[in-house]
């Protein structure tokens, strides 16, 4: 026997070690008891190190980013994000409550319920098992965390606490193959079981006869005794009849694996399933203004300064004389003319009634003939008179647009002597 053992020493040691571990495993499964002492030692030994690494990473890389690149914007953003998450959580709760206020017992329900009591936590580490989706958070039994508590974010559910240590807790994510969540559809209030074991989240145990639409929201039903009823779970991306049960695929509203900050529900409060999906916008918004037209812009623009008034005046003059500023071949407009808009009350009309004489704005200057506002004569190339322009003014091209001037335009007043 001794010779046999010495000959197969390696194999014997292997069998002893494996069998010992198997027996220990069987003992744990049989007694359904977690070996807390070993886990506490391991977690207590590892998590401070992870915290130190996280602190070093934050204080080195984060320091450079915070103070040399973005100053303290990142810190403010983090704080605002945390506040925003908290407010959204409250908003979701109150929105759910208000949506149920239309029902008969809504008031009683509203008074009876109170918001879930939560505590914020930070994810500090992952599990060592690649196939098991679990994370560690930096809150433990000292923060009143208990085993079985739900972990959520304002966007959706994250997981449940499976192990609690003094300073940290272990959270099993909803994407873990062994995790199931009781869910309820928004419209038909159809109950099912969320299962993310195959990599894609599906809702099981729903009959083919039940009506579930694509885009419909699913909420926690509270039947799993972990998550309070009414927390958003996800949106249906496909719902097709299967063999016996409906094949429903769900897109989780939260990101359990990528969550940095989570909320542990210390005291859960069941809420009613809202009738409408939660909206992001809360403030009332005016309708979109009508599209602007050129006339509106011209009429609505009001000169604010002297420069604006001059620009507007020159614009009117250019329009009246058919001048296009900046265009090649467009003649110099006569800026001494008074634009029609600025013209004072019309003087006694001349023969034909198409012209009005404007009083000279400068003492001693000649009266300026401005185009009539009331009845502008139709100007055609045939009856358009040739303007008498000052000396040196380049002649306008024949193709230039017609000027809205009167048929008898006197020569412009000469320049001031």
């Amino acid at each position, binding site marked *: 026997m001794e010779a046999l053992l010495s000959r197969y020493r390696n194999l014997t040691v*292997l069998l002893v*070690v494996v069998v010992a571990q198997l027996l220990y*495993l069987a003992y744990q499964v049989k007694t359904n008891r977690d070996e807390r002492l*070993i886990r506490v030692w391991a977690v207590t030994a590892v998590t401070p190190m992870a915290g130190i690494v996280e602190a070093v990473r934050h204080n080195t890389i984060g320091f450079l980013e915070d103070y040399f690149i973005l100053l303290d914007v990142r810190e403010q953003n983090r704080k605002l994000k945390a506040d925003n998450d908290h407010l959204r959580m409250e908003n979701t709760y109150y929105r759910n409550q208000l949506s149920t206020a239309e029902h008969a017992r809504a008031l009683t329900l509203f008074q009876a319920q109170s918001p879930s009591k939560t505590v914020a936590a930070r994810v500090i580490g*992952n599990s*060592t098992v690649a196939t098991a989706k679990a994370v560690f958070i930096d809150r433990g039994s000292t923060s009143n965390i208990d085993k079985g508590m739900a972990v959520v974010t304002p966007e959706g559910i994250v997981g449940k606490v499976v192990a609690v240590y003094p300073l940290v807790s272990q959270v*099993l994510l909803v994407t873990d193959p062994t995790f199931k969540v009781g869910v309820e559809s928004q419209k038909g209030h159809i109950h099912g079981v969320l299962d993310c074991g*195959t*990599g894609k989240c599906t809702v099981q145990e729903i009959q083919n006869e039940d009506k579930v639409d694509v885009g419909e929201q699913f909420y926690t039903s509270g039947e799993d005794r972990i998550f309070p009823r009414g927390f958003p779970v996800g949106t249906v991306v496909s719902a097709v009849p299967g063999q016996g049960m409906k094949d429903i695929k769900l897109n989780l509203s939260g990101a359990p694996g990528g969550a940095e900050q989570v909320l542990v529900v210390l005291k859960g409060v069941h809420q009613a399933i809202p009738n409408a999906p939660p909206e992001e916008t809360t403030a009332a918004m005016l309708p979109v203004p009508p599209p602007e037209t050129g006339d509106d812009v011209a009429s609505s623009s009001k000169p604010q300064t002297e420069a604006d008034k001059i620009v507007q005046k020159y614009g009117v003059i250019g329009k009246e004389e058919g001048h296009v500023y900046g265009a090649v071949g467009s003649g110099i407009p006569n800026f001494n003319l008074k634009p029609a808009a600025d013209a004072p009350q019309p003087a006694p009309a001349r023969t034909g009634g198409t012209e009005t004489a404007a009083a000279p704005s400068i003492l001693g200057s000649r009266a300026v003939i401005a185009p009539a506002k009331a009845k502008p004569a139709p100007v055609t190339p045939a009856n358009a008179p040739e303007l008498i322009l000052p000396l040196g003014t380049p002649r306008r091209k024949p193709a230039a647009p017609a000027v809205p001037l009167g048929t008898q335009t006197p020569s412009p007043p000469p320049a001031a002597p």
Partner: protein
Amino acid sequence: MINETSDTLLNRPPLRDSWFSRFEVLALAAITVVAIIGKFYLPRLIPHTEWLELPLLLTVYFGLTRRNPVSALLFGAFVGLSEDSLSPATIPIGMYGITKTLVGYFAASVSVRFNVESPAIRLVLCFFFFFFHAFFYWVMRRALLGQIVPFDPQETFVHGALNAVIALPLFAILDRMKLSGTA
């Protein structure tokens, strides 16, 4: 005098047996702790690195280098149980322990029969042991714990290949550390 020198040479432990004398025990323990904590913390630092199995690669390296099945299986059991203690509370302690015990034993057994210094052999062995490790762990979860967990062979192949690629420079670094210990 000659006989005394011969006796000294004969009594000196062979190169591979004096592994511990060159690769310091403390250094080994430190690397093991770093590997386990790395698996715990690395996915938080660098996203999408859950596939990296540094403790497994360390177990394989120990088995291939030590070439002593008993030491390798004990080392594998220690690493596996350490990982188990950080695993979710829904998984009892011992699952990784058994798996890595077998990996360490088989790695040491293979190293006795083959020349495992070649990078190509190491690449193939790392890929094989990763696949064996993942498959055996999945079988144990189904058979012993009754947990229905998915097993994706394609994903496991890809992760095995990635771990094998990572193992080559890692083993080279560990080799250099061992050699530097002799100098």
